[in-house]
């Protein structure tokens, strides 16, 4: 077996990885007309399957392997006890349509999670249904739409989105049928207040605002922003992607945010799974509570039982069943293990780590930090613009970091920072690791000046060299199945 085998290359006719019992009931003939002629799945034994995927796993970088400062993604350590918990039969093997009396434990857990994250962010009601952050955004914008329609404000069709926002914000706006209007940032990285005022009129549904924003900065005018939007009859959507900076520090709901999504897979440590599953619950003020997607869990106090509740003016169901329950169990365990004090400690440490990293970057001087005159929050944004190495780009620096055994930061985002390197260390990194990362950046700056090709050709020590993305996009190969001929030759 070669290291790079493709799954179908391992297949040989007659193998199987699972033995199944013979039917213990009298068989019923299956009408021929329904049957497929061929099922072109691979044929592998179990040892082959195990080795194949284990070897694939070894080609991945991951939080469990090392430092993963991917800005805006909050790649913190994922507690192992959470993985233990979701595999308990009482969580893993319950059907979503069972009678509520048989799943009171699960519903109670969801209820308590709704209450806890509502408390953490200052909201009156929460729906756990959205499956990811972007899904929560769509839910939130649809709630804003429904609320404005209920107020009789049918002429509103614009959503204000700062130029530093994640692409999901304008994309969610479009999906809700609205037009995104970009609001520029000011020199300190805040929403430009005068531009905001100019954009506010009676056609504005509201604003989507990420706080701390994608520059890693707290919107110091946030209260004024919320007041201005409210005065203009708009609503304020909070993108909770960066909540890890402010848990126990400030509650978005207190600042004037009307609706916000949480990323349980960022703030509350649930694993990112190689791209998902996440979970994007939405919290709202009392005014917006009737519009939440349903069902949510309510407590029937008279009967001391948890029940499914469909909010009266609900935008409708946004996902089948109740959301990504397995992710909720992990977030629940994380919050319960930390408590109020522990969560505040998490945010304080995440911010301390990021500011330490930023302070040392400023001392080093090789990588400009455009907003370095301010303290950052959970992340800092630097630039891959090394003086004396003008033909080296952020991409080269990122690829060279791989050779030093670090996952690169987020690159080329936010869009408003040229050659951006967005670095989020999180609270679960030790000082030695952050120092080693900074030392690597320091060495890379030297290499960039002395031997730029070392960077242009990086990575040198990864499972593959730089991949040809142009070729992949020009002539896409999105699946590979053995041809009938190749299969018959085996």
């Amino acid at each position, binding site marked *: 077996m070669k290291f790079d085998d493709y799954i179908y290359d391992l297949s040989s006719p007659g193998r199987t990885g699972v033995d199944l019992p013979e039917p213990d009931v009298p068989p019923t003939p299956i009408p021929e007309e329904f049957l497929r002629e061929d099922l072109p799945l691979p044929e592998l034994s179990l040892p082959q399957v195990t080795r194949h995927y284990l070897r694939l796993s070894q080609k991945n970088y991951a939080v469990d392997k090392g430092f993963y400062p991917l800005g805006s993604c909050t790649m913190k350590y994922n507690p192992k006890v959470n993985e233990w918990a979701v595999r308990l039969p009482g969580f893993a093997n319950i059907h979503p349509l069972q009678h509520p009396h048989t799943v009171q434990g699960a519903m109670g857990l969801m209820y308590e999670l709704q209450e806890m994250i509502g408390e953490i962010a200052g909201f009156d009601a929460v729906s756990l249904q959205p499956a990811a952050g972007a899904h929560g955004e769509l839910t939130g914008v649809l709630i804003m739409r429904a609320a404005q329609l209920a107020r009789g404000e049918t002429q509103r069709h614009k959503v204000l989105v700062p130029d530093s926002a994640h692409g999901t914000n304008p994309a969610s706006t479009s999906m809700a049928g609205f037009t995104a209007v970009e609001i520029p940032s000011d020199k300190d990285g805040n929403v430009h207040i005068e531009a905001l005022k100019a954009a506010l009129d009676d056609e504005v549904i509201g604003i989507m605002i990420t706080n701390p924003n994608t520059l890693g900065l707290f919107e110091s005018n946030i209260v004024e922003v919320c007041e201005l939007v409210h005065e203009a009859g708009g609503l304020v959507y909070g993108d909770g992607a960066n909540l890890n900076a402010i848990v126990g520090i400030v509650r978005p709901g207190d600042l004037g945010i009307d609706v916000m999504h949480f990323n349980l897979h960022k703030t509350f440590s649930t694993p990112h799974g190689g791209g998902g599953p996440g979970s994007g619950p939405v919290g709202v003020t009392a005014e917006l509570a009737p519009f939440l997607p349903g069902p949510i869990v309510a407590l029937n106090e008279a009967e001391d039982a948890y029940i499914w509740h469909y909010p009266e003016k609900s935008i409708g169901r946004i996902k089948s069943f109740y959301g990504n329950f397995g992710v909720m169990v992990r977030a629940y365990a994380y919050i319960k293990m930390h408590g109020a004090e522990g969560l505040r400690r998490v945010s304080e440490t995440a911010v301390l780590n990021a500011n330490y990293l930023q302070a040392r970057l400023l001392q080093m001087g090789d990588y400009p930090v455009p907003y370095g005159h301010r303290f950052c929050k959970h992340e800092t944004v630097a630039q891959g613009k090394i003086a004396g190495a003008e033909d080296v780009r952020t991409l080269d620096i990122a690829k060279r970091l791989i050779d030093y055994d670090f996952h690169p930061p987020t690159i*080329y985002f936010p869009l408003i920072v040229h050659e951006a390197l967005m670095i989020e260390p999180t609270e679960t990194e030790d000082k030695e690791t952050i120092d080693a990362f900074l030392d690597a950046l320091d060495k890379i700056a030297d290499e960039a000046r002395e031997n730029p090709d070392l960077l242009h050709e990086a990575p040198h020590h990864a499972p593959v060299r730089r991949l040809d*993305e*142009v070729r992949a*996009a*020009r002539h896409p190969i999105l699946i590979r199945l053995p041809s009938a001929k190749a299969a018959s030759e085996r």
Partner: protein
Amino acid sequence: MTLKYDPNVKYAKTDEWARVEGDLVVVGISDYAQDQLSDIVYVELPEVGAQVSAGDVVGTVESVKAAADLMTPVSGEIVEVNEALDDSPELLNEDPYGAWIFKVKPSDLAELDDLMTAAEYEAYNATREH
């Protein structure tokens, strides 16, 4: 590498060029545009037969990391598209002034007067951030 400017075409601020050929206007993208996009991987061609107005988005030109709207610099009817770009979008990188994208039967040739000359376009690009 210095960018090429073709004196025989007129330029839009959105980086398309237009060239009169017989009673048609041929449209492509400038050398500056292809350079900014880098390797072009896909061109979404306009619909033949569509009636368009100057400034309408009629397609897109895509690289791996960016997608640029393709606008028509003149109004009229789209009469032909360069289907060779379906298989070889890189032609726009290799020969931006040879590899046209679409042809319009113009309804108002005077619209060409609103476009820039090569010299004007070159000066305009000098003011843009690279």
